């Protein structure tokens, strides 16, 4: 008979899924790879340099924070890789590399770690990092280059800024659709942030996340649906369908709806709450694009809704199984 003195005794359950936090984070990174590939094709290898710099920066700052404060080092959960890739994805490819590192430091140290680390940050670190950079370095954060321009790998390129499809679309008084065709927008052959240009590559990543059950449809669908409905019902110009599609495919909307708004820590945990949150993101995005001074509204829309997440969650808690209204304390046969 075997030695039974080493039997582990614990409270049930005694089995668990093989999913883990690290697996989920790596799945998100995998889902972002098609967009990175397109980005390298459109903007050259400098995209890769930007992304790698950002990932290393995020990992380094998280490690530095944990070591300095003598806390367990949490880099191995890989959530910093996701933040790193996403922050680089929402910057112009021509921005200097040191700017990426400043964004990383703000995202990881201020937004994520100071609030308690993974799962405790109430805002998406990558988006908050981008907002910080937009406020502090507005010129460098809008250095849009044309697609297929050769850029140096490490030194800051000297580029003349070109209009993005979205800025052409939302500039006040301009009711013309951009020059880029819908196909260009879907494939990503346009100017814009590093990882946001190809809607198709982002959707492919989103489908992978759905397949892996990392995300559900609630947030992306309610977000995109709201933007689609509002832009179709209140179009600029007289071609509502192509106006709507241009809005859906341009700017950071796909990146935001699929990868940013679905960030676990900063979005509601309840399904009903996720729908309200998605609709809110969509409405604010359209408001900023229509009426704001920025051409892009996705990042601020998501950040504003991040701040509402806790409240939304509180009011959308599911009704428990077998709930009986207090007045009918002596409930009969049926609920």
């Amino acid at each position, binding site marked *: *008979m*075997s*030695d*039974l003195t*080493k*039997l*582990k*005794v*614990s*409270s*049930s*359950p*005694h*089995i*668990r*899924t093989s*999913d*883990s*936090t690290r*697996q*989920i984070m790596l799945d998100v990174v995998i889902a972002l790879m098609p967009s990175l590939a397109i980005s390298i094709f459109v903007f050259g290898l400098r995209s890769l340099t930007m992304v790698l710099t950002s990932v290393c920066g995020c990992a380094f700052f998280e490690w530095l924070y944990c070591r300095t404060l003598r806390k*367990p080092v*949490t880099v191995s*959960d890989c*959530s910093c890789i996701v933040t790193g890739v996403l922050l680089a994805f929402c910057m112009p490819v021509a921005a200097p590399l040191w700017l990426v590192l400043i964004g990383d430091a703000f995202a990881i140290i201020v937004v994520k770690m100071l609030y308690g*680390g*993974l*799962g405790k940050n109430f805002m998406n670190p990558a988006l908050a990092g981008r907002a910080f950079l937009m406020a502090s370095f507005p010129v460098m954060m809008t250095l849009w280059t044309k697609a297929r321009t050769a850029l140096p790998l490490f030194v800051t390129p000297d580029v003349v800024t070109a209009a993005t499809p979205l800025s052409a679309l939302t500039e006040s008084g301009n009711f013309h659709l951009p020059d880029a065709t819908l196909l260009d927008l879907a494939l990503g052959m346009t100017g814009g942030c590093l990882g946001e240009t190809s809607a198709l590559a982002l959707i492919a990543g989103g489908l992978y996340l759905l397949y892996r059950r990392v995300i559900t449809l609630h947030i992306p669908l309610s977000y995109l649906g709201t933007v689609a409905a509002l832009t179709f019902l209140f179009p600029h110009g007289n071609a509502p369908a192509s106006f709507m599609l241009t809005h859906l495919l341009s700017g950071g909307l796909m990146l935001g709806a699929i990868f940013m708004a679905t960030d*676990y*820590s900063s*979005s*509601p*945990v*309840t*399904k009903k709450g*996720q729908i309200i949150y998605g609709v809110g993101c969509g409405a604010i995005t359209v408001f900023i694009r229509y009426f704001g001074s920025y051409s892009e509204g996705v990042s601020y829309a998501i950040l504003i809704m991040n701040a509402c997440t806790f409240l939304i969650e509180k009011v959308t*808690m*599911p*009704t*428990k*199984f*077998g*709930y*009986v209204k207090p007045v009918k304390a002596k*409930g009969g*046969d*049926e*609920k």
Partner: protein
Amino acid sequence: MAFTFKGGIHPDDGKRFTAAKQIELLNAPTHVVLPMTMHIGAPCAPLVKVGDHVCLGQKIADTEAPVSAPIHASVSGTVTEIAPKLHPNGSMVQCIVIENDFQDEPDPSIHALDPDTLTTDEMVAAIREAGIVGHGGAAFPTHTKILSALNKIDNILINGAECEPYITSDYRILLEYPWEVVGGAKILLRMFGLNEVKLGVEMNKQDAFPVLKEYLPQDESIKLCPLTTKYPQGAEKQLIYALTGREVPSGKLPADAGCAVFNVDTAAAIYRLFATGMPVIRRIVTVAGSAIANPKNLEVRVGTPIDQLIAACGGFSEPPNKLLMGGPMMGISLVSDEVPVIKGTNAILAFCKNECVTAKNPVCIRCGKCLAACPMRLAPTYIYNYALKRNVAELERYNTLDCIECGACTYVCPGKLPLVQGIRSGKQLVTDERRKRK
């Protein structure tokens, strides 16, 4: 179309190891250990002394308490010891030890009963005397359940969901003794004066459907209802919802939703009682898990020490890390293999590696998977956090006491938080506080 509930999880059901294994009769052991607590409710007091000769099926312990079930000798022989011994739940419980004389001489009082000539009260009394308890695992005394439901219900449900992974004992009963299950259901129908019973079986046990259909009565009084394969489909409240669309009111009994649920093996035990007069002395147990050399379904005497079941399955193939009584989702982990099989034992599982790793610094990443999995529609991560903070007011607000401890939240958690373990401590905090307030 299969019936189901909202939420739940899909763990690997692990039933392939024993699903095809016919029930094997394990020889009666040289001695049986019968704890005075094999059920939910008051413990029994011994009716025999050391040295007494007992017959097979003789009542050897009983109590006056309404929620309890008497205990019977599962072998004939001599009482050799009445002393506290290790119970599967880890505590020391008064046990009667009987040395087997291998005569299997039945108690003279045992005789078959005719359900058609007995009144409902007489039938309930017979079930009480036979010590029948819920065989699904919780071991709630069946006569208490029937008494609480008489004249209040319009639905009898037979639970053949067997949603716990690895366990195949109910499945084998459906395949090999379908007439016992159907016969038990007919007796329940007569007892309650109703004309329909629903028998819910999960779709992963479809092979049993044609076998069962052969025995179902022509008048369609027993309906076979397929259930979606999902954990915890066999939880009482979830089964009632799946089959009737009713939700048992929070804090109330199934009878308050007009339902009574009986496990398939409980129904079979009722049938056997009326057919032979024999009280509960046997049990069908699945022995499986990665550390068991040759997994099997065994028919054993209640009170058989479990090391004999494991030996009958070729012993351990590897040193076990965990030994469980019951399923991997809600079973209890044993401290030793020197505990007896009790009435509620449906499985003995042994795993070689720890399959439930809890992270050293578990972190909730707020993925919301626990909320989606919770069959009671609670917010496990919230309850867990408030339990850690010992915040009783918030624990009450988030309906901590409604948790059925199915463990679905803990299973799905990618952050490896000990959710249900924390919620259990939260429940304790709430009940302590309520008691203080009274």
